[in-house]
């Protein structure tokens, strides 16, 4: 009987915690023929003295990398294959300037992420490898920490936050998590909310990708037939020998 009351009390307690529901748009991002990266808007409400940090996380997949090194004392080429486990395909952190020095302390930066990543076979210089991994991901804009990424606006006692997240052209299709952390004036996390959004191929890129990966032989034959006809058409239009060979 006591347990029953406890459960009810717990429910009431959870219900009584003030929410800070956030919204994001769009819900689904489509990669069409003219896709060149898109913006994702994340916004919500906070108390006046609170801050928010927004995280975008891609799925944790096993990813494969080639490590370069010097061979024969002359050439720079692949010297090892490394498998990275528990590394999200995308890791974006957007924080307000006031928290720029607290990201690491709050456990929301690269350091916490790196502690979870497993590399196989274990390299001697893991720290250096992770540094290179970060460089590669940052170059593709798939990993980023934006220390001026959350903006505030005020309406009476309500503080609104907004983060405009840039999703780069190289972002792979899939499901992504959005995590919003509520931070109190003592720089402590007092709440976490989570939602998700999808990135999907659509239209022509979807058709081409489906064909290339699921019907590769037909795709190859079609690519040849279309190129032959395009070449003939070009030759007919210009009445010449065509281009490079």
């Amino acid at each position, binding site marked *: 009987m006591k347990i029953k009351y406890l459960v009810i009390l717990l429910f009431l307690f959870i219900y009584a915690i003030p929410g800070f529901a956030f919204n994001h748009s769009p819900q689904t991002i489509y*990669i*069409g*023929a*003219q*896709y*060149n*990266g898109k913006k994702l808007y994340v916004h919500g409400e906070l108390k006046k003295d609170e801050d928010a940090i927004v995280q975008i996380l891609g799925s944790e997949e096993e*990813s*494969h*990398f*080639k*490590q*370069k*090194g010097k061979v024969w004392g*002359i*050439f*720079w*080429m*692949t010297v090892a*294959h*490394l498998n990275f486990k528990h590394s999200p395909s995308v890791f974006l952190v957007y924080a307000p300037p006031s928290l720029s020095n607290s990201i690491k302390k709050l456990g929301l930066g690269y350091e916490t992420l790196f502690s979870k990543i497993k590399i196989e076979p274990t390299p001697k210089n893991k720290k*250096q*490898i992770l540094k*290179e*991994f970060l*460089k*590669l991901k940052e*170059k593709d804009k798939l990993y980023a920490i934006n220390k001026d990424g959350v903006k505030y606006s005020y309406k009476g006692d309500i503080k609104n936050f907004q983060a405009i997240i840039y999703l780069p*052209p*190289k972002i*792979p299709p899939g499901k992504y998590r959005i995590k919003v952390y509520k931070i109190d004036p003592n720089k402590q996390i007092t709440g976490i909310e989570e939602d998700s959004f999808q990135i999907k*191929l659509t239209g*022509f*890129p979807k058709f*081409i*990708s489906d064909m*290339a990966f699921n019907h*590769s*032989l037909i*795709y*190859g*034959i079609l*690519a*040849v037939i*279309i*190129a*032959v006809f*395009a*070449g*003939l058409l*070009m*030759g*007919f239009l*210009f009445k*010449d*020998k*065509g*281009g*490079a*060979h």
Partner: protein
Amino acid sequence: MFHMYLPIAGNSVNIVLILGLGGLVGLLSGIFGVGGGFLMTPLLIMFGIPPTVAAASDSNQIVGASTSGTLAHYKLGNVDIKMGVLLLIGGIIGGDIGVHIIKVLRALGNADFLISVTYVVMLGFVGSYMFIESLQSLKKTSSKESESTQATQEKESVYAKIMKGLPLQTHFEKSGITMSAIMPLILGVFVGILAAIMGVGGGFIMVPVMVYLLRMPMHVVVGTSLFQILFTCINVTIMQSYSNHTVDFVLALLLLLGSTVGAQFGTRISKKLRGDQLKIILATIVLLVMFKMLYGLLAKPALMLSYAGGH
């Protein structure tokens, strides 16, 4: 604006840039009368297309570019079908070998390295050869000409003896030559392997091979080379699509559009310029591309990690 997403390359590119790249290579192709495929792949790599996707998509582009050329030459009677078919059989075998080499090397992680090294060697060889040959032809005196002719004749006699000793002697009517059918087969395999690895039709290798090793007349060389290249690249495109999923058809079509238009302007420009000077300019461009790629192999890379396996 002006961007197009390439689903196989997994990135978006500026359409104007890719059309311009195709146009530039097509322009060079039109001006100099040689293939531009060997320049296209390294340029695509420089602009961020993964090497294996760049090479395979370039093969697809070459299918379109060589189609109209082959047809035009066939109508003029410049295609030695018998020779072309033998080179083609060799090319198909070579193409299959090349695709499998790429597949094995991709698994080992060295495909991109092999593509780069092959490029450096071939561009270095072709570029240096063209540069020296055009310099010599600019400086050539009548006495030197006779000396070189004599030297060539001496070399020819040894070469001719080997050629005559080979079995399966066949007469090639269009080319007006008699030789062993094994020769074009072996040379076809060689060019096919290079075509698959480098993503080029092999024209810049095949043309000197036909002229110097098969001794075919120039007008038949161009037509037969195009014929052989067309079918070799058809095979390479299908094989790359099937085995490695690296053909980006959208990229190939954009390049084709650019190169065909560029070639038209190039052809017009070439009529107004001198041959030897043009050859030296082209040789310089080829050598510059070669040095850029060589630098990539010798200089410490900015990033010590790269994605494995493509997409």
